[in-house]
């Protein structure tokens, strides 16, 4: 096994790769693709919920990247640049598909009432960790706007001000959409769990419960 590269070594070797790619060296393109393909593909997959679309978008993002690579001057981290480019490629694709929910500025919901829960349901909670496939499916079932904010914030780690800039909406709207996305996701996951009988009851002693 080769020793783990330090961040400094990694950055230096990436800078060399970028310089070589700017000279049009094929193996440098390949190495950059290899280094970043998983993150870009995962982003595309989670934002679209479709493997074929995700692969096409990954290809498109890297194609745009390599076309523009000669303009990269290193002011920002290469991965940040690539990631933002990939987000834009996916958003453009979703908008072309006519998914209006992707635009969050149409209806600013940041000042709306808090999300109400349906108290007709039982109060059981999700049990333990949520497996990857179930979670990914629930995410893919979210409306496009909710899904985008959830993926960017909770999975990719973007801050609300960054999401607001990307989505051209207010910070408050981004926060509000995220909360709704999480609540909707919970609803979907609880639906899955109930169908499979996986929910766990809460501890006894809840003062609001009465036996019938």
């Amino acid at each position, binding site marked *: 096994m080769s020793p783990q590269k330090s961040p400094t070594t990694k950055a230096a070797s990436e800078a060399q790769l970028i310089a070589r790619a700017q000279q049009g060296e094929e193996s440098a393109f390949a190495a950059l693709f290899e280094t970043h393909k998983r993150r870009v*593909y995962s982003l595309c997959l989670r934002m679209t919920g479709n493997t074929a679309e995700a692969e096409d978008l990954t290809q498109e993002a890297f194609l745009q990247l390599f076309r523009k690579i000669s303009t990269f001057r290193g002011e920002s981290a290469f991965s940040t640049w690539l990631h933002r480019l990939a987000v834009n490629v996916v958003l453009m694709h979703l908008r072309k598909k006519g998914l209006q929910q992707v635009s969050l500025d149409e209806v600013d919901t940041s000042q709306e009432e808090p*999300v109400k829960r349906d108290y007709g349901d039982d109060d059981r*909670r*999700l049990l333990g960790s949520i*497996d990857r*496939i179930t979670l990914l*499916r629930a*995410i893919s079932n979210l409306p496009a706007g909710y899904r985008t904010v959830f993926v960017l914030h909770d999975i990719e780690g973007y801050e609300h001000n960054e999401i607001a800039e990307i989505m051209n909406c207010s910070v408050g709207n981004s926060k509000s959409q995220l909360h709704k996305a*999480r609540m909707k996701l919970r609803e979907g996951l609880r639906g899955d769990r109930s169908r499979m009988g996986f929910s766990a009851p809460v501890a006894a002693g809840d003062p609001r419960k009465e036996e019938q």
Partner: protein
Amino acid sequence: MKERIARSAGCDQFDAELAAYLEGESRPQVVAHARQCGYCAATLSDLEQIRMSARELPWEEPSPAVWANLRAALEAEDAFRVPGDRWAWLGHLGLLRHPAPVGALASLAILGTLFTLSPARLEPVRTSEAGLVAGLGENAPAVMSVDEAAWARTIHELEDTYRAREPFLEPELKVTYRQSLDSLNGSIRECLTSLQAEPTNTLARDYLLDAYSQKAELLTSAIEFSGR
């Protein structure tokens, strides 16, 4: 036992402050209320669980076709002013330390074409075979489509060949292959378990086919290396 829920004023305040609390703002009422209210405690616990699970989602691997298509597009645009070794990019795969042989790629291309163009011609395998492939033993679910069963059988055959040739691999390479195979077996098991619980789960089916495709690719390349 059936339970009836009564909503309180504390629940309304909890709802109003929950989003801010999850954003990291100080909202002591949220925690205080959740301690007394099972319904709100379940909501809070679920949302925290969702957030944590989302953060821990692993990165996914795109199929090798993505680079092949990208490379072709770049080549068509004359982007490569310094052409490299045609297969040198494979040397950058964490899995492989050396360029993969053309034979392995040719085998994969044939496999891919076979499964893409004429899956119906391939006979399905018994689910017990699929279970062996995935490490599920006799507990394998009877949920495989013809495509999946065909992949499973092909992989089973590749595994037999690989097992016979594994002793000839360099020790370091053997460890690397074994770790990758274990990881892919884990993914396959996870998909089959999901499909067993819910046979209509199309995402699990997509992942299963991806995992089979990657495993076939891995085994083919391992077999090629062992013969060098």
